[in-house]
Each structure stands twice: as C-alpha cells, then as structure tokens.
C-alpha cells in the first residue's frame, strides 16, 4: 500500500497485536509525558501531538534490566539456568529517524569480535517503522550528526505524514515489506532543524583538550543523575549484578551510566574520572571521538533527549555548542 490512513494504520497494528506481535509506540502515559511503550491497544498509539518521547526504542534491544542466566545452588554445587531464548516478534511504530538510526550504530559495539547473542536475538526480532519528523524543537540536532527528519538509516519502513490524515509509505527492508508490503511512496513534509555544530570539530576538541578546565567549568551544575544516558538512544553502558533469592538467583544486566562516580571506581579507591567534569567529558569524548575512531560512527543521533531530560539544562547540545567559544579557564 502506498498510502495508509490513520485508521488503516491502527487497523494494521491491531492485526499485528492479534497475531501475537509486541507493538511498541508513543503512548501518553501521563499528562505531558509521552513514552515509547508497549501498546495495550491500537487506540493508544499517538500519531501526532508529540515531538519526541522522553525515552528511546533502545529498550527493545537492550532492556533496562535483563536476566543473563539464572543459577541454583545445592550446597557447593551450582547449576546454571538459561533464560528463555525465544524473543517475541516486536514492531516499533512511529519511531523517529533518531531512534531508528541508533540500532545500526549499536550493532557495531555489540558485534565487534565477541557477538552479544542476547542483543542480536532482540535486534533480529525487531521491525522499525519510522515516522518522518514534520517538526523539530530547539533541542533537535539530527542534521549536525549526519541524519535528518526523514533519514532512512535503521528503518525497515518510513511513514511520511501527508498532513491530511494519511501517510505515504516507503518500505526499505524485507522486514518492512513483510509488515506493510512493497511500497515506494515518498512524502515531502519534513522540517529539519538547522545545523548547530560540526561533529568532527567536537570530537577533535575532546581529544585535544582532554584535561582542559572547560569540562569542569561546564559541568558544575551536573548532579550526575544519568538521565542523559538512560534516555539516549545509543548510550549502552551496562552493569552486571547478582540478584539472590535464598539458594537461587540470577545474574542480570542493568543499564549503567558514565555519569555515576561508581562507574569507574577501582577497588583501591582510585578513580580515573573522579570529578563530574571528567565524566561529562567522557560522554562527549566517547560519542564524538572514541566511537567514530573505533567504529566509524558518531555515537549520537541528535535526538536531543539528553538536554530535554536534564534537570539542570546540560546535555550534548548545550555542552558542545559552548566548545567553539570556550576560552581557556585558569585551573
């Protein structure tokens, strides 16, 4: 189908759900809060009235809490128990290009040398139907990191809102065609944010000014809450912890964030990144220098969630737009 009405899309979603597929899309979970979350019914899907959910679809491939395996202890013998392997088929509906692009970027780190099968299973079971953006806000900066409001990267299909209650449908992969049928329609209503900075320069600055007081000066307000990392589509750092219940238990992977002092704390008490400035620098350095150098990708899709969710007005854009004007500050 080259065009879908809102009604038609909801009908399809209903069919997918009836077929046992997990459907995830933007849902108003509370007044003023839209999150990507599992749809209870096709009616929950919000096709407009939001700019960007406060979270991202990375939860589909990297859940915030994921049992890696269980164990059962019988005196000093241990038995390991595999978690259920089957991942239900999932369809993300109305992801934005800044969500969809995150998945091929994350594929790199989860598959270099050692393949992370838990990640790959989820990734393979996930279809991404993207909704091109017709609006942007002051925090959006996809065009500064090589993307745009209708960038196709990571999408299995792209919907363009025609503005008349219909969507132009363009299918891009076999998964997309399986969901929506082959279609080549293109919409024209997009609204790209202006280019706001040069990502290469940011990476270079982070590498060349690693110990510059800039980082501490501009991180004084940071409370180290990690909201930037948790709502980021590509921040993927995790912790591995044991959860014990009597003689049984499990080892689980939980989201973690480089903004926490414990993240890098050595057992000796030494901490390589002992100030919040060091930790803010790490976030920028990792995204704009280290990841591009290692994987050829900027670890940022320009979604702006870090700034929108930051309680003190920090985030990638507020920080890096200070860089070209940064005067050296005396330590």
């Amino acid at each position, binding site marked *: 189908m080259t065009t879908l009405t809102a009604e038609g899309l909801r009908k399809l979603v209903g069919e997918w759900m009836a077929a046992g597929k997990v459907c995830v899309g933007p849902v108003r979970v509370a007044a003023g809060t839209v999150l990507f979350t599992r749809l209870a019914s096709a009616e929950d899907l919000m096709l407009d009235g939001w700019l960007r959910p406060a979270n991202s679809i990375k939860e589909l491939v990297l859940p915030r809490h994921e049992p*890696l*395996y269980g*164990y059962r*202890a019988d005196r*000093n*013998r*241990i038995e*390991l128990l*595999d978690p259920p*392997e089957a991942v239900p088929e999932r369809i993300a509906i109305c992801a934005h290009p800044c969500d969809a692009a995150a998945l091929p970027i994350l594929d790199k*780190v*989860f598959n*270099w*040398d*050692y*393949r*992370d*099968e*838990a990640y790959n*299973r989820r990734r393979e079971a996930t279809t991404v139907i993207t909704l091109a953006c017709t609006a942007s806000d002051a925090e959006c900066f996809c065009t500064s990191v090589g993307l745009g409001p209708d960038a196709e990267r990571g999408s299995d299909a792209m919907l363009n809102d025609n503005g008349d209650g219909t969507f132009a449908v363009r299918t891009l992969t076999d998964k997309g065609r399986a969901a929506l049928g082959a279609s080549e329609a293109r919409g024209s209503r997009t609204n790209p944010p202006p280019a706001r900075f040069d990502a290469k320069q940011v990476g270079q600055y982070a*590498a060349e000014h*690693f*110990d510059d007081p800039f980082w501490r000066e501009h991180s004084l307000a940071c409370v180290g809450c990690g909201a930037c990392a948790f709502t980021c589509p590509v921040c*993927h*750092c*995790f*912790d*591995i*912890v*044991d959860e*014990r219940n009597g003689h049984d*238990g499990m*080892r689980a*992977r939980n989201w*973690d964030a*480089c903004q926490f002092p414990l*993240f*890098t*704390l*050595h*057992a*000796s008490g*030494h901490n*390589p*990144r002992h100030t919040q400035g060091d930790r803010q620098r*790490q976030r920028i*350095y*990792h995204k704009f*220098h*280290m990841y591009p*150098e*290692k994987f050829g990708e900027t670890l940022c899709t320009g979604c702006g969630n870090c700034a929108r969710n930051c309680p003190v007005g920090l985030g990638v854009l507020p920080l890096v737009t200070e860089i070209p004007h940064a005067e050296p500050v005396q330590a």
Partner: protein
Amino acid sequence: MQNLYKPDLMEAIGVRQHTSDVKSISLRFQDAERAHQFTFRVGQFGIFSAFGAGESTFNICSSSNWRDHIEFCFRKVGRVTEALWQIEEGDTVGFRGPYGQGYPFEEWRGKDLIFLGGGIAMPPIRCAIWYALENREDYGKITIVYGARTVGDLVFVDELAEWAKHPRVEVIQCVDPGGQTPDWTGEIGFVPTVFERAQVPAGQAVSLVIGPPIMIKNTIPVLERMGAQMSDVYTSLENRMKCGVGKCGRCNAGPVYVCKEGPVFTFRELQAMPLDY
C-alpha cells in the same frame, strides 16, 4: 546459542591465604572437555564470580604452562571479594575468559627481564615470572624487585625464595620504611629507590612494572635514568570492568577498551593516551 556472559563452572581445588586480607584460589574446570581445550596467555585476565555476590576481574596469576588448573589472587575489599573469601576447597566459582591481550613473550626472547611489583600487584607479575623460568633458556638475567608496605603485606613470599634459587635470577624484597620486622633481612625503602640502588642494567632489558599509581609514577623516571626504552617497559592496567568483551563501556581509557586492547600496554603507548586510567 552461545551466551557471552555465561561462565564456566570451576571447582576450587586449593585456597592459600597470603596476608590478613589476601588469598589466592586454584580452580579446575568441572567440564573435562573444557579443561582439556582451555589455553590462555600469561597476562590475560578472567572474570571470576561468587554466585549470589557477583563478578570481579582478576589476572590469571598462574603460568599458562600449568595445564591442570588456573589461579587467581584477590584482596578482600568489597562485596564480591568478601564472598570469594568464604570459598573453600570443593566450592564452585564462576569463570569467564581468558580476555584481553597477554604479555608478548615472543618479542621478549633473548632479553633481560626486570619485574617491578608493589603490594597486591604481584599476581600479574608472578605468572610472568613462572613462565619465564619455565622457558629459562629464552631469556637473559631476571631481576625481581618486589615491595609492600609491611612484611605482612607481601604475597607469594615462599615463591620469592624459590625464584631466587634459579640461576641468573636476582630477587630483591623491600618494605616501606617502618614496615619492617626485627628479623627482616630484605631492603627497607620504596620500590623505585631500592631498584635504583640495585643499579640493574636496564638499557637492553624488558621491564614489567605493576603496582599502585604512585609506585609506577616514581619508577618510570628511574627506568629512564637507567637507560630503558619506554617501548620496552610494560604495565597491566586495572580499570574497572564488567563485561570483559568490549561492550559495557566501563573500562574505556581515552581511545581504548582496556579489556580488549589491554590490559597490557607499553609506557610508550600510555604516553600517547590521555590520562584516563
């Protein structure tokens, strides 16, 4: 399908207490086939775990020539090591690995070897010492300088005496001033000072320096004064890790994943990296 994070189960076949808070544990794979297939390079590390407490990263401190078991050594400082402290013979320990890069012993052939260690840093040196001694004809003179805060903080003490019996091996033990006992016959002083006093020819040698940051910081200038090339001076970084396989992001030091590209680095490599370790 392979689960990257699922450990091998190993049986503790020996527990040694070295100091009031340091133990080493010998482990054997419960799975006979895995035991037969397992190989590693000295300098590589493993992720060891006590079920119910969690995982921690330690160097595999036994020689790779010892095919029947592996050993690791730890200080009791936190949740996981408190649980490992309770491990007795016959208990089960989890192991993932081997991970990271080992020492490039092939490149070290024909050279003198200098081992400089401080405190709990002995285990990642100990495996290298045994490996060198087991391939004695491949290496020149071996000098070992090992120091700790007090006599009671030295680990693998019985092995220090054993190493000293080998030909062309010099072992110098030292404790920080005030850390000696009345019957202490070793040197008194910090590792860099004691090492400089010994005037070991370092120009053609490979050095392995592992210890607390302050020891490393003060040892490097001594090595430079003795003529060592920074491309021949090695260390093993100890960045905190969780996954061990370049995913969890924790061990990033500047542009590298310490778990994959390290933990072994030369000081020439470290000097080119930002100070993030």
